[in-house]
């Protein structure tokens, strides 16, 4: 599904990712944990092609194809999805219009016909219900005036509608109350199957109580310093990150 080999990337002249390698198979859930500034969010941004993130060396294969040479939108249409830590507002562009355009772009890429407006609206309403967002949100501007929790649920709704093959959740749990956290986790769990993979980037173990990962990786200083099963997250919760950083140093 995803094969990252010796990836090096820099942001504003500073090396952030150093020789990072990671392999993700279909259906797996990988948690990426680590202290602030360890490069956790950078990984998602580099994979999705965000401007300002410069890959200096290494390669990434997504579904067997070279990912890094693809445009941002091509990667998205191929099934790569990033749930943003801080979703931006797009005033005046309704959520419905935005979602329809996104889904149309993805379906076109997959060679599927456009959904009719009627079918899409039906689907969108059902999906908003699954993330406990009132259907009225579909008529509002994208994230316009949404609370933090509403924005995150909106991200999950987009993920459900786009049905990506690899979902990256970038600290989706930050700033969420327990109810919203359960909605987000419920959304992810409902989408888990033997084909779809997830990268859950988080600072805290809390989210992993609800989304149980197959693998946990600890990122420090731009590289993976420790990998393990779900029990590694608990260990981190108990001991913090500093012992690992010491170990690396």
């Amino acid at each position: 599904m995803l094969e990252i080999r010796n990836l090096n990337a820099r942001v504003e002249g500073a090396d952030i990712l150093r020789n990072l390698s990671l392999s993700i198979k279909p259906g797996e859930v990988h948690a990426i944990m680590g202290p602030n500034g360890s490069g956790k969010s950078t990984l998602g941004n580099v994979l999705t092609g965000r401007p300002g993130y410069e890959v200096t060396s290494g390669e990434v294969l997504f579904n067997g194809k070279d990912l890094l040479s693809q445009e941002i939108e091509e990667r998205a249409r191929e099934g790569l999805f990033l749930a943003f830590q801080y979703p931006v507002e797009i005033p005046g562009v309704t959520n419905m219009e935005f979602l329809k355009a996104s889904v149309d772009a993805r379906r076109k890429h997959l060679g599927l016909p456009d959904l009719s407006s009627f079918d899409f609206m039906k689907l969108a309403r059902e999906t908003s219900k699954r993330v406990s967002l009132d259907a009225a949100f579909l008529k509002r501007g994208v994230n316009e005036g949404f609370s933090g929790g509403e924005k995150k649920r909106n991200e999950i709704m987009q993920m459900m509608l786009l049905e990506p093959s690899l979902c990256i959740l970038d600290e989706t749990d930050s700033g969420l109350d327990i109810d919203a956290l359960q909605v987000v986790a419920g959304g992810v769990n409902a989408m888990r199957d033997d084909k779809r993979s997830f990268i859950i980037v988080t600072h805290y173990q809390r989210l992993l109580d609800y989304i149980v990962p197959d693998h946990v990786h600890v990122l420090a200083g731009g590289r993976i310093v420790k990998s393990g099963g779900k029990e590694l997250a608990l260990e981190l919760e108990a001991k913090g990150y500093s012992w690992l950083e010491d170990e690396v140093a």
Partner: protein
Amino acid sequence: MTEQVEGLIRKEYAAGFHTSIESDTLKPGLDEEVIRFISAKKEEPEWMLEWRLKAFRAWQEMEEPTWAHVHYPNIDFQALSYYSAPKSMADKPKSLDEVDPELLEMYAKLGIPLHEQEALAGVAVDAVIDSVSVVTTYRAKLEEAGVIFCPISEAVHRFPELVKKYLGTVVPQKDNFYAALNSAVFSDGSFVYIPKGTRCPMELSTYFRINEMNTGQFERTLIIADEGSYVSYLEGCTAPMRDENQLHAAVVELVALDDAQIKYSTVQNWYPGDKEGKGGIYNFVTKRGICHRNARISWTQVETGSAVTWKYPSCILKGDNSVGEFYSVALTNNFQQADTGTKMIHIGKNTRSTIVAKGISAGRSQSAYRGLVRINAGAEGARNYTQCDSLLIGDRCGAHTFPYIESKNSTAQIEHEATTSKVSDDQLFLCQQRGLDAEKAVSMIVNGFCREVFKELPMEFAVEAGKLLEVSLEGSVG
């Protein structure tokens, strides 16, 4: 992102073709003889000639205004030709069948096939190419309702009393430099009269297009909505691509008598010049309406064209409880410059005005909003709400706001809100991460920004306006 944005702005001007119709063009220059020539060509009565000459004499004493936030080389008014009419018009067509097929084809290229419009849209079009109204459709049906919709040159002959009574009452001959010039040399334009208590049975539409090289186009439009009547008027404009700059100095006067309502919508797509800023239309237009008691005038405009724009559709709210509205989207790209806005003059009691102005700047363009809200001493309880938003695309363009507020009545309520924002990298990235390409994303963001104005446009115009923005922005990212 800047480079990416740069690319999106580039797109060939889709309406930039020149139709080779034999024209009857006056050689360049302007003096009283030229005005007598124009008046004689139109077989005008003496009073009309005198009216023009009075304007011309005033104009000679006036100076070109320089206060607008635009820069362009001096215009040599003696180098322009002030009259041009397609030759085949010498014997005017009585119906569409008699119209030069090449003209009709040109309209078709512009997307306004008259035949089809007659059948489908129910829109009566008074199409103006250069100076002479080519054909007026649907006139019979309108006449049945008592509505007069004809070229103003014809109205001078057929309805002299109405023309005499209202022409120049909203925009006087000496109002400003360009209005005086227009009053002296205006070639043609539309005349509309809606009788008392009549709701105009269809939307009226005029398509302006400048075809001839080196001709200024000076239309004069006069719309009179008698007591309790309603009319919606659509105006669309295009011009072929030329390396030279062309001058367009129109005057539009609206008169809304007691309880009447006029909705005036413009989609302006004059040739904006090329990517290096060469050529394009100088659009120096005076548009103003007067509202009597309980009357309402709404100006809605979507402007994507012209090299230089100087335009302030305004409302004089003379009657008590009258309402003035101004909804505007002005998009500038490449080297375009726009200084546009409105004036709301509150004279009557409880008069209300709303201004929503959206400016979008891309490339190296400069866009300015200039607005005046004046509350006179007698305007008890007057209210104004102004919202002025600027959107910047890239980092080499500029947006400026010059709001003037004058209140002489302490009971007045005036609100002014202004924002400036950019199409941010984050917005663009969100859209692309969801699978949209950059052009589609920018177009969607810009359309969202304009939503409040687009919803004021008649339906078919709103679609056209959205498309026009998309075309005008193509190439600004990529």
